[in-house]
């Protein structure tokens, strides 16, 4: 499935890959430090997703569960896409748009059933107690739409209305207008 990154109100193809001392190539989400949570999304050893110019543009998420006695831990790695017919997309949703005291960035479902595969977050303040922003890897299917609100400002919608086109990011007001125009019946004409 195709991969995208949403940040600052814009959506772009691909997930940025960084080098990690221990894991090698990873997609790094969130922020390190107290009151924060980071996640390193590694690559499937057997059949890793292809990296081109430090970006992954197509990948299949594989969930691996490890049992260590009573402890069970699961994580997601990125494998090469298998099913060409799979129309779902992976979208990294980063809701950081700057600092404001007690700002809170995140996303929520508007249409469909988008699912966060990996959840990470950054925060403001030494202990992360004066605001936070989410940085999630989200699985979206055709017909899904999610609303993103930035940590400082901004309210957008990621609209994956049809599989023929990439997901679109737009201001929430524009999305409402687009829906009204598409549906037609909600507009009262003079």
């Amino acid at each position, binding site marked *: 499935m195709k991969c995208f990154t949403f940040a600052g109100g814009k959506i772009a193809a691909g997930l940025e890959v960084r080098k990690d001392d221990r894991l090698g190539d990873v997609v790094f989400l969130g922020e390190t430090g107290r009151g924060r949570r980071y996640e390193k999304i590694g690559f499937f050893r057997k059949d890793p997703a292809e990296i081109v110019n430090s970006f992954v543009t197509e990948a299949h998420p594989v969930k691996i569960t490890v049992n260590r006695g009573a402890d069970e831990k699961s994580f997601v790695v990125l494998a090469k896409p298998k099913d060409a017919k799979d129309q779902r997309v992976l979208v990294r949703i980063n809701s950081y748009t700057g600092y404001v005291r007690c700002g809170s960035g995140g996303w929520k479902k508007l249409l469909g059933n988008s699912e966060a595969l990996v959840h990470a977050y950054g925060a403001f303040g030494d202990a992360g107690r004066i605001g936070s922003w989410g940085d999630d890897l989200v699985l979206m299917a055709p017909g899904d739409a999610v609303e993103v609100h930035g940590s400082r400002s901004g309210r957008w919608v990621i609209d994956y209305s049809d599989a023929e086109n990439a997901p679109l990011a737009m201001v929430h*007001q*524009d999305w*409402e*207008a687009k829906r*009204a*125009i598409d549906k037609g019946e*909600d*507009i*009262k*004409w*003079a």
Partner: protein
Amino acid sequence: MGMKTFVVKSLLGARVEDGIRMSGGKYVCSCFDRDEVLCYGTDPAVEEYWTVNVGKQENQVFLRASEAEPDSDQEIVLVHEYSPGSGHKRWPSFHVDWQNAGPVEKLASVYRGKGSGSDTWTLAIAPAGWAENIASQFVNERDYEGQTISYCPVQERQLPSSLEDALSKLGL
């Protein structure tokens, strides 16, 4: 269906132009650190609207291109009122006296103000000829004072019947 079609005009001071230009299916007003949408067009590919149907949904206004015969009594006017900012202070400000603007229905309005100047964009349904009436009263000359203009429709004078008869006999 009873849906009205209106001619669209843009009014800026003493200037009236036909139509309204949109970009990306919306009329965006730049408010310095943010953009505000005054109205949407129903077709993002259409850049200019000349005759339209006008619709509302909650707080949003939509214009849809229409080829039907436009209403002869009313028109849609995009009014751009302004107070010049520093550097242009000697030019008059242009405002409409909305309290005395006649039977006008405001559809949407966006204001921006920062420092000394300000702008207000308003989309309104107004009587036919309203835009020209306002524009004709505005004096856009340097060092002329700012103006807030009312709608002053020209009253058609009824000639006395005897004078009408006399004129008709003369073939006038």
